[in-house]
């Protein structure tokens, strides 16, 4: 009985954490790259975008998983498109109502969440085949992975581009804090405009790939060493 509970917990954790590192939508799957480049010029807007995507992902994953047995298999994709469009419209209206400054900064990129491949991809590959709770976890994990990715890119761009770091309260738009880490005249302002977005994203992707490859190398070496020890032990 206990092993079953332990297994369930680790399975839930695996579903949740795979969206953050191993299947990170930004650095591994490269789905939905448009908001990564467009909304990461400041930390506040990137954070707001991440929150919006988490909200949409969680709600759509749960809804689609709820109705997965009722939808005929042939018309899956149009139904998913309708659900996602409705959810994004509602989230957009709520954001314009309660987080007006943030919604105005994000502008059309808030509506573009509809065609963001993360959402349709997760819906089709996971939510249509798994239970409601697992889909909820997967949505939360993938959304968090997206949030971490955009925040990482935005932090890099803002710190190197303007020399300081600031954060606005999403609900009121008032600045919560602003820290100037080094004088602005030494900052490379290229990173706050369009080429900087591409370059930062490219460099971070290369770094991610390199770290991943090194980690895999170490795991392989460890496994080989263990196998050798086991063999030597067996021979004796």
């Amino acid at each position, binding site marked *: 009985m206990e092993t079953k509970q332990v297994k369930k917990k680790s399975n839930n954790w695996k579903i949740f954490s795979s969206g953050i590192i191993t299947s990170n939508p930004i650095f591994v799957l490269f789905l939905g790259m448009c908001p990564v*480049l467009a909304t990461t010029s400041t930390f506040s807007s990137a954070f707001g975008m991440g929150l919006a995507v988490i909200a949409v992902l969680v709600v759509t994953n749960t809804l689609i998983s709820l109705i997965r047995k009722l939808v005929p298999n042939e018309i899956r994709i149009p139904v998913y498109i309708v659900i996602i469009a409705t959810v994004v419209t509602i989230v957009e209206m709520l954001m314009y109502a309660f987080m007006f400054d943030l919604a105005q900064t994000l502008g059309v990129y808030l509506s573009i969440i509809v065609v963001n491949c993360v959402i349709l991809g997760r819906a089709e590959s996971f939510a249509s085949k798994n239970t409601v709770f697992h889909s909820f976890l997967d949505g939360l994990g993938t959304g968090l992975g997206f949030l971490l990715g955009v925040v990482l890119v935005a932090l890099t761009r803002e710190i190197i581009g303007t020399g300081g770091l600031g954060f606005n309260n999403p609900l009121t738009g008032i600045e919560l804090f602003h820290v100037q880490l080094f004088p602005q005249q030494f900052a490379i302002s290229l990173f706050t405009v369009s080429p900087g977005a*591409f370059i930062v994203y490219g460099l971070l992707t290369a770094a991610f790939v*390199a770290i991943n490859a090194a980690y895999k190398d170490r795991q392989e070496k460890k496994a080989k060493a263990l196998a050798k020890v086991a063999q030597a032990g067996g021979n004796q």
Partner: protein
Amino acid sequence: MHYLLLAISAILVSNIILTRFLGICPFVGVSKSPKNALGMSGALIGVVFMSSIISYAINRYLLEPLDLGFLKLIAFILVIASFVQFVEMFMKRYIPSLYKSLGIYLPLITTNCVVLTVALDVAGTSVTGSLLNWGEMLTYSAATAVGYALIIIGFSYIQLRMQNSTLLPKPFKGNAIALITAGLMAMAFMAFNGMIV
């Protein structure tokens, strides 16, 4: 003259890929050979042009007079998705050769940010309504699609040479170097920034 300025602004100054960051997914994924890029951009120009006409008509004559502007997003995505299905059916039956080369890209265009953005741009916000008249709308959507085609085809030629390079460090292979190259292209296009005030 006004239309020419609108076209130049859409193609060069606020280019939809390099300045507005839309349509990036096919940009780094599909443009590995010039033939694929040509096919993708051809399909895209057609879909953008036609679906922006339909979306604009629906918004201006149906949704706005009845104050149903909040339905824009759902209506547009439904229009775009069904239009792509109809185009695919038409090509399967009557132009099979074209379907063989372009067929794989049509489902990708449904979830392409460019198509939806052009539709939303010409429809305006729920407060301001449609800002453009018919002539401006046609120029804008055609010019945006041409700007996209320009960048994606040019980029595919660069990618051709990059694929065969041996000096590239391993972590950079694939998407990383594609994005950095796009950044260099964006830097070049920044020269057009002050062109139209």
